[in-house]
């Protein structure tokens, strides 16, 4: 598989090869959500809208 993919990536312009090599490194991965972030997301975009819908129903 690696050989086949090597053949494919040979077509990447030389100016981009270093970019692809670096992009594979873990230090080039962005930071992901933590559990508290999911809580914030659910509160802001699920719980709060649910309350708004309830208020709209009662309005």
């Amino acid at each position, binding site marked *: *598989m*690696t*050989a*086949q*993919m*090597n*053949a*494919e*990536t*040979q077509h*990447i312009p030389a100016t*981009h*090869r*270093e*970019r*692809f*090599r*670096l*992009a*594979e*490194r*873990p*230090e*080039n*991965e*962005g*930071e*992901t*959500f*933590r559990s508290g*972030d999911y809580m*914030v*997301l*659910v509160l*802001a*975009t*699920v719980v*709060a*809208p*649910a309350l*708004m*819908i309830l*208020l*709209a*129903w009662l*309005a």
Partner: protein
Amino acid sequence: MSTVESRSMSTGTTDGVPLLISERSWRGFNLFTSSASTSVATWCFIIGGFVSYYLGAVPGTLVMIAGMLIGVFFIILALIPPASKYGIDSSLSSKPFLGTRGWLVSLVLLYVTVAGWNALLLIVLGRASTAVLVSAGVLSGDGAHGTVTMISMLLGAGLVWLIVRRGPDSVRDFSKWIAIGVLVLAFVVMGLLVSKFGLNGILEAKPSAPMDSKILNMTTGLEILIASAVAWWPYIGSMVRLVPSARTALWPSIMGLGIPVAAVSLIGLYAGLVIPESGGDPTVFLTQVGGLTFGIIALAFIVLANIGSIMIGVFAGSVALRQVPAVSRRISWPVTTGVALAPVILVVALVADPFFAHFPSFLAICALLFGPMCGVQIVDYFLLRKQRLSIEALYTTSVGNPYNFWAGFNPAGFVAIGAGVAAYLALLNPFTYESSGFYAYTTASIPSVIVAGGVYWLASQFVLHRGRGGYRAGAARVSPDPTPPGGVRS
């Protein structure tokens, strides 16, 4: 925009290569302004105007904000984690669940939907130009002005092409000023509406075409805003990929995508309620609420703002087209921008009025397609791939690529999206907005996201069993220093 961002715009964005963490220099504020400026345009008035058919001011306000936030939940969960972790855009992020050839479907959807949004803007531009000429007394107020509107739209399209063909630099700062301008216009219009009709007049205005059932009216208002948010799936990745952290991107995305669109759409709602014949269309109500002078100035601003918004849309469509290697290798940037603009011109030249009249159907079709896509992407990234993708597999198409599945297509992805579409259609007709089943209690978009995700998980068990898709390798890959692609080793 900094030098680094400029470099990102000229390399990563246009040539479809991964962005390195050092190039992802956007902070939360950049993402907020960019999200707000991309999503806030004159289409917001039309969205709010559509809601005014069903809901009054108070329930409409609450339901619209709620709907926007719910839609934002799906796209944030689907796109921010992979886009910010790997610096990839929306269409490329679909490769792990659609396949190395199948992902072209998402590119086509992006191209078509961006063209749809641009067509709407161009139609509003044409109408605003005509309204300016009528208000200024250049045209008579009682005649048919189809030819003038058409010429305005084509001139607008030509101007957009002349600017965008020069490259990303021409687009760079436009969106920010457009968003600020549209927000200012919205606040001024709100002030005029209050002064002309009074706060009580707005609060007591009745929706113009409500259904008999209160819950159906609320659900339809909710559905329209969920659809408006989910329709941003194609745009989000290209912005979030410039942010180095999903955590940094969270609040700016919620606030930048959810709140400004809802806020400006609310003005369309209120205008639609007190001037029902406008349907929220600013080209109809601006001179009515602001008088001749204000109307002409505001309409002229709409013409300029829409040219800017279309430029951004054409730029996004062109970038998407250049993700296809055959396009980026053989076609120049100016030609690509022409190809991105071509369907917009076709729509406004051939079916401008029917397209404008059926804008709610366009919104529903966006939700019909991108809702299931979100469901599949969430399940694929979180449950099946355990938040790990392969950069090498994302950017190559060789036979050994794990994202090839079968001949470049992942049948599980297409079956699941098909199931999500079927679920949506079973609940809501996107062309007539006739509903059935439990739509009144669930909307159509939410079940379609859940059905697509569930079916994808089930169908992927077969894919996993056959050892395709690179799931086991991806989940097990925890090496701190993965072997770089041999072909790119210097």
